[in-house]
């Protein structure tokens, strides 16, 4: 029940219904299959990044509570924005000892590299563990207090003098930036850095003017009074930032999430799938996971089975449109 109240307080009503239905049928089917060797937990990103931290956190929860009989061993295959991981998992079709932690490059990388031959709708869905959120950030040394002043400042500075930092081109931060530019009719110079943590630091060091970091990446600086969130790209305000408005409140329907899910290779048995769903459901309901979500401004969003696949497909199409409008794909 606690799970449900939490989801409700965050106010994510549409997913609530899904999470209740998903939890009810996935709990007791796990007995039929269990791993015979350590499970490869492939991470679509390099060591030390956000996705990597989350995967290792999950691994830690599994280990601490003994949720799995054999260890889950994280392996980073971050090459080519996750292209390497996608190819690897595709080639492991039918192997039940491989699972993969995904992020949004799960959609964008196959779209941008059609030659990869990866169709994510064929992968076996396990569970969506959370959705990470985005906020617009500026340094707290500026006088910019809200989005209106921000837009005015960007327009006044002009494209050449307003530097927006983010992760690689075509990745989440650049998509969010493109959405902002289109909505407010300004242009910025977009500078790609290696990871969200570096981006956050560049903002505090005043090498760039604004960012669209995840709350978790700016949290430390925010608490020290060094950075300021202007608005959130979510439907409702975040619990940890009750005073920060959403773009929707400001009259623009700007919503973007980073999904944090787990998938398995295509064609693994139903029993193996049920086993993993069981393990991750326990992780999802653990106190550690729920605390982490609330503290870091992530939204809970448990989703499994076919519903998860159709969610992936829907998001992939949304990203196809986004990338096309940016001119990144045809």
């Amino acid at each position, binding site marked *: 029940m606690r799970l449900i109240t939490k989801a409700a307080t965050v106010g994510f009503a549409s997913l609530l219904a899904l999470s209740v239905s998903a939890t009810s049928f996935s709990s007791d089917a796990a007995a039929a299959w269990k791993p015979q060797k350590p499970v490869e937990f492939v991470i679509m990103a390099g060591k030390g990044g956000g996705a990597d931290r989350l995967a290792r956190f999950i691994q830690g929860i599994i280990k601490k509570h003994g949720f799995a009989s054999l260890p889950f061993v994280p392996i980073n295959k*971050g090459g080519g924005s996750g292209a390497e991981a996608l190819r690897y998992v595709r080639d492991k079709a039918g192997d039940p000892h491989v699972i993969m932690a995904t992020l949004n490059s799960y959609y964008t990388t196959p779209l941008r590299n059609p030659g990869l031959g990866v169709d994510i709708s064929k992968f076996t869905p396990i569970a969506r563990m959370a959705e990470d959120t985005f906020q617009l950030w500026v340094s707290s040394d500026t006088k910019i207090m809200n989005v209106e002043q921000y837009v005015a400042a960007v327009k006044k500075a002009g494209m050449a003098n307003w530097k927006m930092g983010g992760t*690689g081109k*075509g990745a989440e931060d650049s998509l969010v930036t493109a959405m902002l530019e289109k909505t407010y009719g300004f242009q910025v*110079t977009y500078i790609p850095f290696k990871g969200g943590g570096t981006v*956050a630091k560049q903002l505090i*060091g005043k090498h760039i003017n604004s960012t669209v970091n995840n709350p978790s990446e700016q949290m430390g600086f925010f608490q020290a009074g060094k950075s300021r969130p202007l608005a959130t790209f979510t439907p409702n305000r975040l619990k940890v930032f009750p005073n920060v408005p959403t773009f929707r409140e400001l009259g623009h329907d700007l919503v973007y999430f980073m999904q944090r899910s787990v998938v398995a290779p295509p064609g693994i048995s139903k029993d193996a799938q049920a086993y993993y769903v069981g393990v991750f459901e326990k992780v999802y309901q653990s106190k550690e996971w729920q605390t982490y979500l609330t503290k870091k401004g992530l939204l809970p969003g448990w989703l499994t089975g076919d519903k998860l696949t159709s969610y992936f497909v829907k998001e992939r199409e949304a990203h196809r449109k986004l990338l096309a409008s940016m001119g990144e794909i045809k």
Partner: protein
Amino acid sequence: MDVLAALMDGFFIAFEPLNLGLVIFGCMAGLFIGAMPGLGSVNGVAILLPMTFLVPPTSAIIFLAALYYGAMYGGAISSIMLGIPGASTAVATTFDGRPMALKGMADKALVGAAAASFVGGTISIILFTAFAPPLADVALAFGPPEEFALMMLAFATFIGLGGDDIPKTFFSIFIGLVMSSVGLDIISGNPRLIFMDLPGFYHGINFLVLAIGIYGIGEMLWTVEQAKGDVIVTKVTVTVRGIIEALKDLRKTKKVMFMGSILGFFVGILPAAGATPGSLMAYGVARTMSKDPDSFGKGNIEGVVAPEAANNAASTGSMLPMLTLGIPGSPTTAILLGGMVIWGLEPGPMLFIEHKEFVWGLIASLYAANFFALAINIAFVPAFMMVLKMPFTILAPIIFILCIVGGFAPTQDMHDVWLMLVFGVMGYLMRKLDYPLAPMVLAIVLGPLAEASVRQSLMMSHGSFATFFERPISGTIMLIAIGLFAWPIFSTVRKRFRSGAYGAEG
């Protein structure tokens, strides 16, 4: 005096039986992981991170920090004994460490490396304890142009590492840089140089694959040939007196040790740089400072002491931006940072206020870890020497196997093992023709940092190179780098001019 009181509290935490036990265990484990070719501190910390969920956060970070330290000490061991750098931070140690071992002075090199690591670590922790908050601002002032300038400075120290054959040295740097660009172009987000469409190239060419290929496999093939089937037995004897003598001898190198420590610490606190450029620069500076620069690369103890002092100082230094700003100063601290987030601690300026016991417990345990790593390391010197006494026909296949397994472990991809064999064979063939290989290995480490920072800087300045000279910090570093680049060219030209054209090449 606040600092001292806090540090005392820290020591009480560090000397709790559980924490002290973890420090000792962490140092031991780190030493072995670091000494294994292929497994450095990054992999060690990443692999053992989830184990730390079983203990409280302060104990967990103490364990991992001790492991990090141990691995930095351990890295020198495989560099000296086998000539294979286990991690990029230990590359510079092979330049003189390996020749010393071949001359039968491995014990001196090992003791020197351990003592230098201790000095570097200690000086660095003292600086850390005293000046953490102001130094954090220095780290913040480093944007892409400053990072690029720093990379140029590191490259400038390469110049001395090549052989006499200038085109071959440059070739080696260029090919290393090209290999470093394989994989992904982070700026445009496009894959690049994916040879034969093999998915293994998406993750780029890992430094370790090249280093183990060239120094492990290539070097062994070379030695097999040189030995012509004979059994080499290195004559080594270790006595307690020998170790004490070796320690006494180190007094002569105190200037170099001190220089390496300070340099390593400052490079370490700069985000993105980490211990590798620090150790290289220390080696370069030691060589420049020396009265006898030609003895470097042939087994000069200063060539071991300088980079080892620097890489340990840098590993402590890189914890500074991690704790005060939440920015990793090195790949290993990136993982430690992940650990802190997982334990529910928020790295950043508030950490020093809200979690005093964590910060000071960690700092105090670094003092302890440093001491234990030194003691354990020296205690194991005789055991390491046993390895060198093994007949070559036993040692060689064991090293080959360690190379193969070590090459596989970081990425768990057989593609890298094959690539390593290719590099080994090519390295062997090129080495026979006097191609210097060290610049290639270093270029592959620094290449990605250099490329990303120069392109980010140019995007920020809209294509103007003036940005590197206009900004005070990057301008200063750039000028020093240019001076270093120009000096050897100037002096060679002068030497040649005096001794007649090309006379020096004889």
